[in-house]
């Protein structure tokens, strides 16, 4: 009985299946040493919405950069050092007082990894994917982003190779802020288009 409490919790069915596939592939020499740890580290610390926030803040303070960003998103984002898988064909769509953009992937979960990181669970789950193309006005309001009826909503379904990033409007009252301070205002949700700043 002295070992009580030292046993790990029993594995759930999905954990048993993951362990089974991992063991079999490892036995066949297909899983490089440390590979799983490397994947975890890469996606937890190298990429994330902080990258996108830097892109947005630069566009707010530098009209020339903003112009390049809206013309060739991939190249302008690469100027800040960001790029790679799911970011090879970037299109940046600009919010204005009259137009609100929002991104979705109805067929799977395509998302601009280099600038936003991996997508949140709700972006990958059926309700968001089903509803954003059919009733975006209702869904945005439910998610805390009600829009006046005269604001046009443009939904972008990432169904091919392009990945989208929303350029939110710069909030009022931020004229004296530095680029780094501005980046701190930019949220993941504002760059997906489910929030306004």
């Amino acid at each position: 009985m002295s070992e009580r409490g030292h046993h790990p919790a029993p594995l759930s069915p999905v954990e048993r299946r993951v362990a089974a596939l991992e063991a079999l592939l490892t036995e066949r020499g297909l899983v490089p040493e440390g590979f799983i740890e490397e994947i975890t580290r890469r996606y937890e610390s190298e990429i994330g919405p902080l990258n996108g926030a830097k892109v947005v803040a630069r566009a707010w303070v530098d009209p020339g950069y903003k112009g390049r960003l809206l013309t060739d998103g991939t190249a302008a984002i690469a100027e800040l050092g960001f790029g790679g898988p799911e970011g090879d064909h970037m299109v940046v769509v600009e919010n204005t007082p009259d137009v609100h953009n929002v991104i979705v992937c109805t067929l799977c979960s395509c998302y601009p990894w280099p600038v936003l990181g991996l997508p949140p669970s709700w972006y990958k789950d059926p309700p968001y994917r089903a509803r954003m193309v059919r009733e975006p006005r209702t869904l945005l309001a439910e998610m805390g982003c009600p829009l006046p009826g005269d604001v046009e909503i443009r939904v972008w379904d990432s169904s091919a190779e392009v990945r989208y990033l929303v350029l939110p409007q710069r909030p009022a009252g931020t004229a004296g802020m530095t680029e780094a301070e501005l980046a701190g205002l930019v949220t993941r949700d504002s760059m997906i288009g489910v929030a306004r700043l």
Partner: protein
Amino acid sequence: MPVDGIHDLGGMQGFGAVAHSPAESAFPDRWQATARALMEVVAGAVEASGGEFRHSIERMDPGHYLTSSYYEHWLTGAATLAVEHGLVTHAELEARAGGRFPLSGPALAPPVADTGPDVGEPRFGVGDRVRVRDWHPPGHTRCPRYVRGKAGTVVRVDGTHSVPDVEAHGPARRYEPTYSVRFDAAGLWHDGQRGVTVHVDLWDSYLEPA
């Protein structure tokens, strides 16, 4: 096994609220990171294209797809590809897991023997009216069901890319331009909301002149 897969969710009704969270870690549980890594291992070992990877998930049993999380999809797809390419057997997986190990259903489309010619020059330009072919291919496609048969306007011409419908089913490839096509919500849905446009990125062969 439905031809129009359960993954094609755009416009489906009855799902309820989005479980929105402002922030979350990339992998709340370690098995999710492992599942992601194992898909990368398998896809690399069998040289799976993006289309073959996606289709391995789309072929999941619809009930399983809707009731399992994103990384369980990846696990199921990875295991399916591993079995189909002979890396492991289904019996080995179930023996090791000590229970059922559901895999995706079989691909219904055969490998494409004759891909037809690549399309180098875009057939359409910005402002052109196009209509999406109304068809239901038995295999993988990136043409969402909710735009089939619908007319829209080209707003952007993108580069030339491998057609998913071809690459998902074998080593053959065909390259075509893709376009961003704008649809008015009122033309997509009987209850389409005012002031809404939906943009879908579509390969050349999905479209015809409107």
